[in-house]
């Protein structure tokens, strides 16, 4: 499979503080990768290196086989950099036109492209407005729009929905989801729910090191069910569920949430058995989800 991002032994220091340590990973065509980590973990530094804004101290970062930031990547790699703002002197449309022209579009094509990308983030009516006249959320959406000018093959999004209202955050998630077949994404966010919905690969950074590097894998011997009850979990429920054939472990992640691990080879209809057990005892449930949440995988591994 073609690697679109190849990072080898990437390291970066700012003064005496080591921000990235010997980071190595690969992303492949069509991947939607989540970059997760606590504040100061090195996510934005990694993004900056991938965008060519910062040189690494050692190691290499290659995108589509070219050094990060290389002119061969102009138009192929797009990004939503953290806190990057438009020029307040010009309208959003003029600036998007200009970016389109820099990407090689004709004047007319650039104007059409500006309209298209603004429509993607539902900002068509703001074409003539200056950045200063837009709300924070609108400016963020306009900044996301610039990342979709032309036909980028890789889009790096640093906190794409931070500061957006729920409806617009949903629109952005839908947009990423819709484009994810043709475009590869790398998304940094603190919103685990969002990343869980969008991403098939997780890079978990902590203190500049890659702690986990995982892909969705449904073929594992061990599978999970996450059960949300309508009532608080109690010993009777746990005891009943422990009797089910195939169960390996059960733990309560929250007051009304249970995570059950089981072996599908021992009981292929384990989920059905759980529902029958609940129904037989008159215990009501809110939802039953296959697998663990990303939050559980990262921070509360069974």
């Amino acid at each position, binding site marked *: 499979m073609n690697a679109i991002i190849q990072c080898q032994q990437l390291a970066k220091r700012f003064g005496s503080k080591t921000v990235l340590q010997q980071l190595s990973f690969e992303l492949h065509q069509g991947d939607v990768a989540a970059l997760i980590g606590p504040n100061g973990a090195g996510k934005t530094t990694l993004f900056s290196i991938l965008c060519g*804004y910062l040189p690494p101290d050692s190691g290499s970062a290659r995108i589509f086989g070219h050094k990060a930031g290389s002119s061969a990547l102009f138009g192929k790699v797009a990004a939503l950099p953290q806190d990057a703002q438009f020029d307040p002197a010009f309208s959003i449309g003029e600036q998007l036109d200009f970016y389109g022209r820099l*990407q090689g579009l004709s004047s007319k094509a650039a104007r059409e492209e500006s309209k298209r990308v603004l429509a993607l983030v539902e900002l068509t009516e703001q074409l003539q407005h200056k950045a200063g006249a837009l709300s924070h959320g609108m400016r963020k959406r306009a900044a996301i729009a610039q990342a979709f000018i032309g036909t980028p093959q890789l889009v790096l999004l640093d906190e794409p929905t931070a500061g957006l209202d729920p409806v617009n955050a949903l629109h952005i998630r839908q947009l990423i989801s819709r484009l994810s077949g043709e475009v590869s994404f790398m998304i940094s966010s603190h919103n685990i729910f969002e990343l869980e919905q969008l991403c098939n690969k997780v890079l978990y950074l902590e203190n500049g090191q890659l702690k986990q590097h995982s892909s969705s894998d449904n073929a594992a011997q061990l599978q999970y069910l996450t059960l949300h009850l309508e009532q608080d979990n109690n010993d009777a429920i746990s005891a009943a569920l422990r009797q089910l054939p195939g169960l390996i472990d059960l733990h309560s992640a929250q007051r009304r949430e249970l995570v059950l691990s089981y072996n599908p080879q021992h009981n292929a209809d384990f989920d059905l058995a759980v529902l029958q057990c609940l129904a037989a005892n008159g215990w009501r449930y809110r939802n039953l989800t296959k697998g663990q949440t990303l939050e559980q995988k990262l921070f509360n591994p069974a």
Partner: protein
Amino acid sequence: MALFITTLKHCGLYAGFELRRLWLTRRGLMTLAATAVLWFFLLRYAIAPASDLIGSEGFQQMFRDAFGAFGLSQLFAWPAPELAIYWILSLMLLPLLCLFFTANQLCSDLERGTLRLLALRSSRLSIVLGRFSGQMLVQSCLILLSLVATLSLAAWREGGLSLAMLNAAAVIAVNLLLVLLPFTALMSCFSAMVRSSRLAVSLAIVSLGLVFVLLSSFVFYFPDFLFLLGYMPGTQVMQLLPMQGWQTLQYALLPLLQTLVLLSSATFLLTRKAL
């Protein structure tokens, strides 16, 4: 080759965008208004009265006696006294004004993060050269406007425009742009270093002053190195003052080389800078 063509194309786009900033944005129009006001006062209270004075035979004789040895009496050879005064004033004033006008080539974009959006689409060399070209175009517009005003004043006093006047105006415009080239490139360097245009201006003034003082002290102890002072930006201004006509272009090489060195430094600084 393709990279070279793309760089040129991007430079053109950046330069065009800076021209739009001058003519189509509020800040640009304020710059135009400030220039118009400045030149109105210079024309009304300096150039117009001084032209009448220069035109008088008595003053010319006195001036020749006092400054003839410095070659300044050549000023009377300009086809219109207004152009002579414009030549002196602009040669002395514009380099200093240039430091202020062109200080914000990159600072604001660095501070806002707009450069991150641009750097995804064009090389840092294109950004430096494009912004520099844009500033030169903007200054060309301002020089042309002020020259047209001066020519109008001369034409009104003389009762018409002559070919010699137009030729002299072209000489002035070309020379002024040559003088401004290294100063604009110097501000490219400083604006690539800091995130505030005020700081860039302060740094430029302090650096120029400091280099001049250090070089002067050095030359005081080692007079053989006097020629080094001649490499400071703008040193050819004093040699240009008593000159006129296209022979002034004999001093064009130094500012062109200075510009080349300074633009290379600006590109190097921006390439090394974390955006």
